Structure formats: structure tokens, C-alpha cells
């Protein structure tokens, strides 16, 4: 193999690969993921559409800054989350606080751990009882920093490190937002399940 041959992700040589940029097709592969994230962040379809369009227009404009072969999905999400965060700053009505500090993790898990003899696991019970719409509402009710961390990790599967890079925050901040956000979610959803079952 010559010193000038360049390898694609599959290890095979690719013909005339660009050093930067991406194709329209490559970028559009991620539109569903960007859109569902935008929906959770803006909480309405019209704003989500605007946010996704803004994301793509910026991505196309700054195409040259994207190093070919790096993670396009993470790069697009970084643009989306930055655009979303600057919107939040303008129209912030988030309190950022919640009453979760009093809630102990052990209380939360006690009901799950003690569910052994009931034939149906807590997981099945929850999965069966909670409607998708309730889950979406519970996510959308989270304060914005927690919501973002939960969506990026639990829905989109980004690593802590990828999320930290995306949001320009330390890894520990990602973890604390994520764990706190999940704790609020778990509480809302288990409370909803128990009130449904009652």
C-alpha cells in the first residue's frame, strides 16, 4: 500500500477521500435522531423543526471544519445542543431546581428490590403500565440540563465523554446531571405506576 493511500472506516482504501467535510446523504442519516432530541428539548414540533433546520444549515456552512472520519453524529449533536442551549438562555423559564435532594436512593430502590415474590418483576410492571406519552411528558418536565443529559445518554447512547465534549462541561458534571435527571424520572414514573395500579 502506498504512503498516500487512505483507509476508510472499514479499513479498505477509499478513492480520493476528502480531508474534511461530509456528504449530504451522510448528514441526513441522522435527521430522525436530531429531530426526536429537538422535540424533547423544545417540547413542540414547530420549534423542533426550526432547531433541526438551523442545525443542518450550520453544519453545511461549517462543513470544512468537520474532520472526515471523525464522529459526524456527535458533531451534529454538538451543533444541535449548542443551538438549543442558546435558545434556552433567551427564553428561560426553567427553575433548574427540584425537590429531589431529600429523596434517598435507598428509598427509591427499596420497592424494586423487595418485589421478589409477586410473580411479575418491577421492570415488567413498569414497562407494561407506563405509556410512552407519559414517559415523554416526564422527560420533558425535567429541568433542561438534566433533560439534555438523559436524552443524550439514554435515548441516543452517547458516552459520558462524548456528552462532556458536546456540552463543554467536565465529565463529573455530566454524571451528576444524568444521575439526578434519571432519579427524577424514576420517581415520576414509579409514582405514576403505583397510582395506576392502586
Amino acid at each position, binding site marked *: 500500500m502506498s504512503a498516500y493511500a487512505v483507509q476508510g472506516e472499514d479499513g479498505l482504501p477509499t478513492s480520493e477521500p476528502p480531508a474534511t467535510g461530509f456528504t449530504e446523504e451522510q448528514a441526513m442519516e441522522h435527521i430522525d435522531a436530531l429531530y426526536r432530541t429537538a422535540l424533547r428539548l423544545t417540547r413542540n414540533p414547530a420549534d423542533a423543526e426550526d432547531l433541526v433546520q438551523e442545525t443542518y444549515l450550520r453544519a453545511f456552512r461549517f462543513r470544512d471544519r468537520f474532520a472526515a472520519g471523525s464522529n459526524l453524529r456527535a458533531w451534529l449533536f454538538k451543533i444541535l445542543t449548542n443551538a438549543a442551549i442558546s435558545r434556552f438562555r433567551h427564553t428561560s423559564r426553567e427553575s433548574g431546581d427540584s425537590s429531589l435532594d431529600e429523596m434517598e436512593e435507598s428509598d427509591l430502590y427499596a420497592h424494586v428490590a423487595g418485589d*421478589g415474590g409477586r410473580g411479575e418483576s418491577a421492570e415488567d410492571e413498569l414497562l407494561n403500565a407506563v405509556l410512552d406519552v407519559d414517559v415523554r411528558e416526564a422527560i420533558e418536565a425535567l429541568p433542561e440540563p438534566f433533560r439534555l443529559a438523559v436524552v443524550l445518554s439514554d435515548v441516543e447512547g452517547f458516552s459520558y465523554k462524548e456528552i462532556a465534549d458536546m456540552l463543554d462541561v467536565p465529565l463529573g458534571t455530566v454524571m451528576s446531571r444524568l444521575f439526578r435527571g434519571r432519579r427524577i424520572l424514576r420517581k415520576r414514573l414509579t409514582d405514576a405506576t403505583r397510582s395506576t395500579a392502586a
Partner: protein
Amino acid sequence: MDCNELQARLEQFVDRELSNEEAAEVQAHLDACPPCVRIYHFEVGMRRLVRRACCESAPDYLRARIIEAGR
């Protein structure tokens, strides 16, 4: 590792963010502790629930609008 230590690391375990060594310790505890296994399944179930609920597709007209605007 006791149950409290397990619960403190469980989310990182489910997120595959622990080192191999730490993950092995969590796994060893889970192998011996049914109540913690239930908590583990609950955590996994929560992730699945969230992912299942968030699965919208972008409308076709948005796709078309973006492609048009990008040219």
C-alpha cells in the same frame, strides 16, 4: 462490594462506563444477590422505556426543506 456500593456504581455499570475490573466486581455481586439483580433489571428497564418512548421520525417535508436550503 456491598449492596450500597453496588447501587452507587450501578448506573455506570449499565452505561458501560466502568473499567473491566470494576465491572467484574459489580457482576460478582450481582451473581450472588437477587435483590440487586432486581434493581439492575429495573435500571435496564428504565433505559428501555425511555428509548421506546422517544422514537419519532422527522417529517418528510423537513428533510426536503433542509436539502433544498442546503443547496
